[in-house]
């Protein structure tokens, strides 16, 4: 960049504003972190922005292991729910998306519009009948019940997302494979899926984040302490007489570590997926 360019007022102002916003946006996380690593009495007296004082992991240990909070169990349950609820709909939706992008069949448009509409439906519209359905299946307050619901719920958006991606893939490889006598199942598993790894990674990252973050389904369908996921556990953290922000901030940070790590690792796919998902360009 040339010096003349660097010194233009628009450039200076843009840099100042953008970095100011970025730091401002980071500030709540810094505050949370500072509060979580100090004894709460110190934070109340000095404010979390003061750097002096004692640093400790006591808050983390307490929320993870104290049976009253037991975030360790919540952590474990969230993983048990989130992993299958990411992988299962990914495969099932990719199969459906392949049909939408390559075959013509009766009710194709009707089914596709149905999927788009499902993407917009609030969770609130499903939970009452689901509550009784899971109850009759013996899956109420069971992680398996929530896994089934998350998997089904994720199918709609992943189908839409993967269909957009498949539509952009060049078809000549598939046609060559057809000529060589490969079945459609072979083509799907051996050619399409490997070619779609970037889109699959994006969908997996976003679906994992959403399932991990889910609170509403969990709140309705899981209620025993040993079956609760981490989002449920973290909102129940309270101090004895008043809100203990030391414990609550430690719990909050623990609850956001897995999705933040997934985001950090798959950032490129994540952001591209987010953009492609809404602009319909995969």
């Amino acid at each position, binding site marked *: 960049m040339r010096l003349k360019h660097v010194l233009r007022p*628009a*450039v200076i102002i*843009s840099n100042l*504003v*953008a*970095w100011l916003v*970025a730091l401002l*946006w*980071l500030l*709540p996380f810094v505050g*949370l972190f500072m509060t979580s690593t100090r004894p709460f009495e110190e934070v*109340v007296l000095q404010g*979390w*922005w003061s750097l002096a004082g004692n640093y400790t992991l006591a808050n983390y240990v307490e929320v993870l292991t104290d049976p009253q909070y037991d975030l360790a169990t919540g952590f474990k349950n969230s993983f048990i729910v989130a992993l299958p609820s990411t992988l299962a709909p990914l495969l*099932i939706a990719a*199969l459906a998306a392949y*049909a939408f992008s390559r*075959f*013509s*069949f009766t009710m194709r448009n009707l*089914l596709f519009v*149905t*999927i788009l509409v*499902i993407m*917009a*439906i*609030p969770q*609130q519209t*499903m939970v*009452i*009948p*689901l509550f009784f*359905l899971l109850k009759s299946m013996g899956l109420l307050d069971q992680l398996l019940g929530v896994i*089934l619901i998350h998997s*089904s*719920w994720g*199918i709609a958006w992943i189908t839409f997302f993967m269909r957009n991606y498949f539509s952009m893939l060049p078809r000549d490889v598939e046609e060559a494979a057809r000529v060589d006598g490969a*079945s*459609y*199942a072979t083509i799907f598993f051996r050619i399409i899926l490997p070619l779609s790894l970037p889109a699959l990674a994006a969908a997996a990252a976003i679906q994992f*984040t959403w399932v991990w*973050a*889910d*609170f*509403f389904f969990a*709140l*309705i369908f899981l209620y025993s302490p040993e079956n609760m996921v981490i*989002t449920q556990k*973290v*909102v129940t953290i309270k101090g004895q007489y008043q809100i203990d*922000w030391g414990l*609550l*901030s430690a719990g*909050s940070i623990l609850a956001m570590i897995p999705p933040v790590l997934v*985001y950090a690792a798959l950032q490129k796919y994540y*952001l591209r997926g*987010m*953009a492609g998902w*809404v602009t319909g*360009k995969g």
Partner: protein
Amino acid sequence: MSRVGDSPLSLKIKEHVRAYLFLLPALALLSVFVIYPIAGTISISLRSEEGFTLGNYIAVVTERSPTKALIISENLGGAPPWGALLHNAVWILVHVPATTALGLVLAYMLTHVYGRSVVKSLIFVSMVIPMVVGGLIIRFIFDGQVGVIPRLMGGLGLEDLARTWTAYPETSLASLIIGSIWLWLGFSLTIHSAAVDNIPRSYIEAARIDGASELQIFRYIVVPAVWPATLTVAVMTLLWDLKIFDIVYAATQGGPGGSSTVLAYVMWLYFARALDYGKAAATAVILTILTLVAAAYLVRRSLGVEKR
């Protein structure tokens, strides 16, 4: 996957069968765990002891208790509670323009910024965290004891704002709405930034050589070019504001005194606290209808992309 082979069956029928084999697992799960429950909710909402009625809807809309009311018109001049539906409306009216505009302006500014991908990544982090944690963080930054904002307001001599915002009806809704700008800016910025990157550099360079100011470039080149993205961001944000629940649950529980309650929260109160499934279903259907009206735009656009 069964392979039909080259039987004399008409190719057309074979293609249909093949398509439905690929679709089968998705359709099975969607039917049982999504479509059936949606139909069930509509049916429950229309049922009462006397048979099929609109009674649940009338009861929900005319409810007057502050924690469950959808509209409390008599409070409108003063502090909340104004009713859940109006809280959602206020939320949308403030949050949608604020997040959309801020994301749009920042996205263009970022074209000048060093380390722009770092800025984008930092701002996006709040999109990735669970929304209940987002709600807790909102309570944290507005907390009278440890929060930054009340401390700041105290320093400015604004004693009314130097206390826990989420604990007072005058400020609870406002704190949630301001907090939601923090939570969602990353989405608006990411989508807008992708759109700005798609503008051919030559357009902007040419305008600059012709002596256009940055403001003019923004107004006459950038804004029109990214407008479809802006509309998408606005509609998505609106949809989230309609469905908002986690933040409210974690930060205020709809309180104090119903001053920050929203539609989805009222639905949950009817379902989990009052065990009144008819009214809970009616509230959910009202929420769904509002959502679908807004989503119709996105659905039409997705089908438009299809046809092009």
